């Protein structure tokens, strides 16, 4: 039982990070139909920049995070302006190649700057583990889960009720109509990229505090695919539910199936889910229904 609960908690924490990264991915897809393969690199940049600020420049952790996020806002906006905007109106495959290229380019630069060995954050969260009944959990897990959940809730409320959120959903529905009411679609897309970079970076900082940072963390950029295929490419709630589901499945497979099969199941499970979902429900659990009145 204890083992099971440990696995569930690990799964939830990993799932929360998946949800954050997938959330950004879905925002970009909704606002501009772009499949962003560089979400994983946004996560890496966030993790490394905050780490460098803390370790090399002795910046207090929260200030370092604030600086990192500010930088990620700029990064998101600049990437959209320089890399994506020239591709407006181009074929989907060209845009996909552009974001793939962006992902490789960013990963190369990151490795040039920070190398490939794992770097660790100094202990920021208290060491003492917390007892939840019979289960012992380290505090960093609970903090990560809490931070991710609060963020996801804040963004959900933002999109539902704030006027910027309403306008962003409007532009996702019909860009020309949005323009006709004075909404600048360019500005909306820039905001979208900024948010996507910021949530991914936060995911990176959280993961970095748990396991340390190395370039292989960018694999999460790929894990986003099963998550959003499961949840629905254009559904924000889908990204959240999909993130936690894949995180949990992965953790369960790692805990119970890997010992039986000698490893490897954990890595495969998300993509098995992806294939199954594509076969039985290609729009995902919450994919946007194309509204057709009868």
């Amino acid at each position, binding site marked *: 039982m204890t083992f099971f609960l440990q696995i569930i908690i690990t799964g939830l924490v990993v799932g929360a990070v998946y949800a954050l990264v997938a959330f950004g991915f879905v925002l970009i897809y909704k606002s501009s139909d772009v499949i962003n393969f560089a979400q994983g690199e946004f996560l890496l940049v966030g993790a490394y920049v905050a780490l460098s600020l803390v370790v090399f420049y002795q910046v207090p952790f929260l200030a370092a995070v604030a600086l990192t996020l500010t930088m990620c806002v700029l990064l998101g906006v600049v990437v959209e302006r320089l890399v994506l905007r020239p591709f407006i109106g181009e074929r989907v495959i060209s845009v996909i190649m552009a974001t793939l290229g962006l992902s490789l380019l960013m990963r190369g630069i990151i490795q040039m700057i920070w190398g490939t060995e794992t770097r660790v954050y100094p202990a920021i969260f208290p060491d003492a583990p917390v007892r939840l009944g019979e289960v012992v959990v380290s505090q960093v897990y609970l903090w990560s889960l809490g931070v991710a959940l609060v963020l996801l809730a804040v963004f959900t409320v933002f999109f539902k009720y704030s006027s910027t959120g309403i306008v962003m*959903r409007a532009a996702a529905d019909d860009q020309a*109509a949005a*323009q*006709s*009411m*004075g909404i600048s679609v360019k500005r909306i897309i820039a905001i979208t990229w900024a948010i996507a970079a910021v949530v991914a970076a936060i995911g990176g900082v959280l993961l970095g505090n748990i396991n340390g940072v190395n370039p292989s963390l960018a694999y999460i950029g790929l894990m986003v695919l099963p998550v959003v295929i499961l949840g629905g490419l254009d559904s924000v709630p889908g990204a959240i539910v999909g993130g936690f589901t894949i995180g949990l499945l992965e953790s369960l497979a790692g805990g119970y199936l890997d010992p039986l099969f000698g490893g490897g199941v954990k890595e495969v499970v998300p993509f098995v889910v992806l294939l199954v979902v594509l076969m039985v429900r290609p729009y995902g659990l919450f994919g946007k229904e194309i509204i057709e009145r009868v």
Partner: protein
Amino acid sequence: MLPPSRGRLFSWGAVGLLVLNNVEVIYDHVILVLKGMSLVVPEGKIVALLGSNGAGKTTTLKAISGLLKSEKGQVTDGFIEFNGERISGLEPEIIVRKGIFQVMEGRRVFEHLSVEENLIAGAYTRRDRKNIRADIELVYGYFPRLRDLRHRTAGYLSGGEQQMLAIGRGLMARPRLMLLDEPSLGLAPLLVQEIFRIIKRINQEQGATILVVEQNANVALGIADYGYIMEGGKIVLEGEVDRLVDNEDVREFYLGLSDVGKRKSYRNVKHYKRRKRWLS
């Protein structure tokens, strides 16, 4: 019978809120669609712009609102003035802020937003945020049905309800000039009457100047002060509404009436029209 297209037949006297002078529009650098389009819309009036399919009515409205830009269209000659100021070539978000709002052809409501969220989106450029609530009520005053549907997803509204929402959303921007592109499209005759009555009320009660594009000439001329008829990218006939409806050609081609006032069958009109065009 009035001779077609010999400059302005009637002078408005007053200076126009909106003036198009010899406007030429080209799509994609090669497709010439507006070929010297001129019209005047005086403040506080309703002006109808009529013409057959492909005449360039929608293009005219998009040239005014700036929406042409995102379709690779360009004003290449002539000018557009609003309130005495050149607006040709400006970005649509600037033009909306100057007080022009285009209600696009085909309603274009935000399908996955609720009715009320659609209205809020319409008020995007407003600076007086605190009056928005009151203006939502104003819209519900004009379109009571929308009040009952306020939380409904707009995509599931009927065509008529969506048209009401599209016009209400335009009202939320509090424009000085509203451009309406075929508000009657796909609606039952009774509903068309109702919507045009409300357009007239909006004009009178809110003081909004209106330029309405229509296929349904009967109902458009019914509320308008002045009418323009366009063919092949330019104005071929214009006049105060009373004069226009007496014009033999207008009666025949746009109102579907023959000299004795009898309704012609649609097929006959269309056939005849192909042979006799305004500019051929």
